[in-house]
């Protein structure tokens, strides 16, 4: 083993590998920060560059792009409420209000620290628990997935905003929107009305951009004065005390990310929202979440970056890609003549160790390049809003078009932008809508696949994993609803008291 690790070190420590991982992270951060361009797209764009590279160099380039892209998505989410990636939609819940309060620097730095710590813990999990966690992931069948998604959906309660019923309606509308497209079991049309563009469902990138970024643009032109201008030369930073107090949240979020990332298909968005919900549930001041709580930023970023290393667990240990990005990375392995899976640990263990060393280093590179990116990207916040917002709109349009190279997606983005604006005006949270939309297909797919396996409903109670998730789903829903009702009652009694006074 020691000999293999030594060979791995020898294989890794080349200038080409160091350059590849640095270039990858920098490219990922830049592309991830552009609304519409996702980490997946960045990895796919970088793939052709790996053809002539050494296997380790090529894989590290792609892993660097992926990790950079996941963090990069949070930059524009915090600065201009336009999440670069779906998972970053959770970061904007508290990141954007912090930017509005002139603390963009603090929010960005906390996002970076949480990302790096979560990424590091996720990488450690990948190295030490790959085979163990991959075995656990294999125990997940459709019923287990179904309950996992049910549990994830209980987060909607925590992100409902000022009204629980409105938040739940928003989540249900998101789920309903996710049913648009061809039915997966029978292949029949649902709400497509013979429109070919809708057969594959509503694209999530235009929906995401429309729902979060466009309402800000519309709102700016409808208001009497600019809603806010970030103070120039924002020097706010994360204090050591703030980092220390958020550390538990970051570690917890990282492990939520690791667990969710290990399970193929569950995704970073669910992890970010679950981590956020959990941070709010355990916080002493849950009412400050959504209004600029730095812990909210830490929780969200820890959740979504915790996924980054863990998604490589099923890929390397079992040869199963957990999401689209890892599917592209799997393609890169195959192009290099390597087949991830148990055999790779026997036949190419030195390459595995070299990749592990590179992946560990990527967290450090992310910290450096993230700091650099924050320094330059945070200047975006200094641009006057009347100049910045037309440019944001342009990125929204270009980014939506880029998804499938069709104007239909621009229309989808504009339609959801109007919906997002209406939701903003009627005080209905948009985050539950996104959560419902992202988890909807997984929810329905696993529900129906369970019924295809067995027509008996007892299949949903077939294993201890099912029971664990049933219990935590019920508990999470009960605790969440009780807390929200208590908070509402407290607000009402405060109103009555102030009225009486």
């Amino acid at each position: 083993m020691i000999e293999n690790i030594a060979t791995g070190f020898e294989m890794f420590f080349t200038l080409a590998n160091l350059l590849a991982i640095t270039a990858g992270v920098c490219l990922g951060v830049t592309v991830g920060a552009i609304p519409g361009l996702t980490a997946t797209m960045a990895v796919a764009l970088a793939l052709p560059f790996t053809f002539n590279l050494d296997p380790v160099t090529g894989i590290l380039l792609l892993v660097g792009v992926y990790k950079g892209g996941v963090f990069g998505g949070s930059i524009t989410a915090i600065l201009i409420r336009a999440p670069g990636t779906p998972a970053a939609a959770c970061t904007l819940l508290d990141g954007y209000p912090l930017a509005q309060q002139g603390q963009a620097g603090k929010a960005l730095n906390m996002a970076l620290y949480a990302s790096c710590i979560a990424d590091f813990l996720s990488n450690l999990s990948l190295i030490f628990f790959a085979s163990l966690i991959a075995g656990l992931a294999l125990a997940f069948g459709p019923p287990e997935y179904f309950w996992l998604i049910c549990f994830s959906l209980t987060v909607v309660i925590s992100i409902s905003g000022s009204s629980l019923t409105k938040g739940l309606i928003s989540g249900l509308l998101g789920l309903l929107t996710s049913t648009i497209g061809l039915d997966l079991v029978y292949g029949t049309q649902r709400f497509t009305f013979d429109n070919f563009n809708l057969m594959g469902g509503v694209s999530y990138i235009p929906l995401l951009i429309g729902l979060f970024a466009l309402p800000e643009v519309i709102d700016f032109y409808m208001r009497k004065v600019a809603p806010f201008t970030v103070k120039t030369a924002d020097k706010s930073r994360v204090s050591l005390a703030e980092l220390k107090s958020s550390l538990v949240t970051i570690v917890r979020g990282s492990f939520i990310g690791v667990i969710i990332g290990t399970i193929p298909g569950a995704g970073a968005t669910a992890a970010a929202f679950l981590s956020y919900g959990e941070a709010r549930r355990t916080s002493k001041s849950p009412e400050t979440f959504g209004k600029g709580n730095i812990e909210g930023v830490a929780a969200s970023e820890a959740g979504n970056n915790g996924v980054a290393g863990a998604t490589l667990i099923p890929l390397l240990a079992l040869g199963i890609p957990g999401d689209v990005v890892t599917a592209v990375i799997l393609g890169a392995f195959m192009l290099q003549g390597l087949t991830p899976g148990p055999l790779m640990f026997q036949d190419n263990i030195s390459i595995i160790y070299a990749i592990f060393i590179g992946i560990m280093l990527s967290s450090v590179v992310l910290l450096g390049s993230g700091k650099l990116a924050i320094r330059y990207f945070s200047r975006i916040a200094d641009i006057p809003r009347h100049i910045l917002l037309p440019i944001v709109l342009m990125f929204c349009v270009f980014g939506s078009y880029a998804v499938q190279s069709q104007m239909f997606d621009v229309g989808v983005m504009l339609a959801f932008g109007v919906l997002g604006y209406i939701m903003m005006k009627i005080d209905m949270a948009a985050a539950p809508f996104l959560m419902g939309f992202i988890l909807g297909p997984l929810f329905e797919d696993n529900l129906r696949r369970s019924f295809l396996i067995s027509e008996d409903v007892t299949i949903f109670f077939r294993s201890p994993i099912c029971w664990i998730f049933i219990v935590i789903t019920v508990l999470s829903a009960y605790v969440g609803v009780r807390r929200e009702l208590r908070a509402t009652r407290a607000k009402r009694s405060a109103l009555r008291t102030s009225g009486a006074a």
Partner: protein
Amino acid sequence: MSETDTDTDARRGRRREIIFAVLTILAALVFAFVVIPNGVTRPASVKHLPLSPVFLPYVLTISVGLFALIHFLEAIFAAHIPGEDDASLGTHPRWKSRLLLLVGLLALYLLMPERLGMPLTAIIVTIALMAIGGERRPLILLGVGIAVPVLVYLFFAHIAQVPLPMGLFEDWM
């Protein structure tokens, strides 16, 4: 803020919540009785109810209706809690004309890229929006309005390899 203002705001807020709940219930009814029957193709036979393509849409629509009903009852019987928007900034005095202009410019983004090309459409809309936002310096209007869309176009078309529509300029490229 005086007590009368607070009462008026509370009444207005309550009315808004009632309207929202009623409209949502109506939308759920329309969805259940018109949109789902006409928008979802049902297979001839379904082995199990949850396997039907209409199962989830119906469950979700009914749930939306139920939560809207709860919201309606809450709006009628419980004290109104002012939302964040209630106390925020008011609308622009010329919001109607600005809204029309904005809708026009958004429609331009939707309809013109295939005719004028994406870069030219972006230049027109960006300059127009900056002008509506209050920018009057020609150097900024033209400099930012032309340079940024062109740079973004070059990035998307040549680095990200996204084939953006060029419209009139298709043959030039």
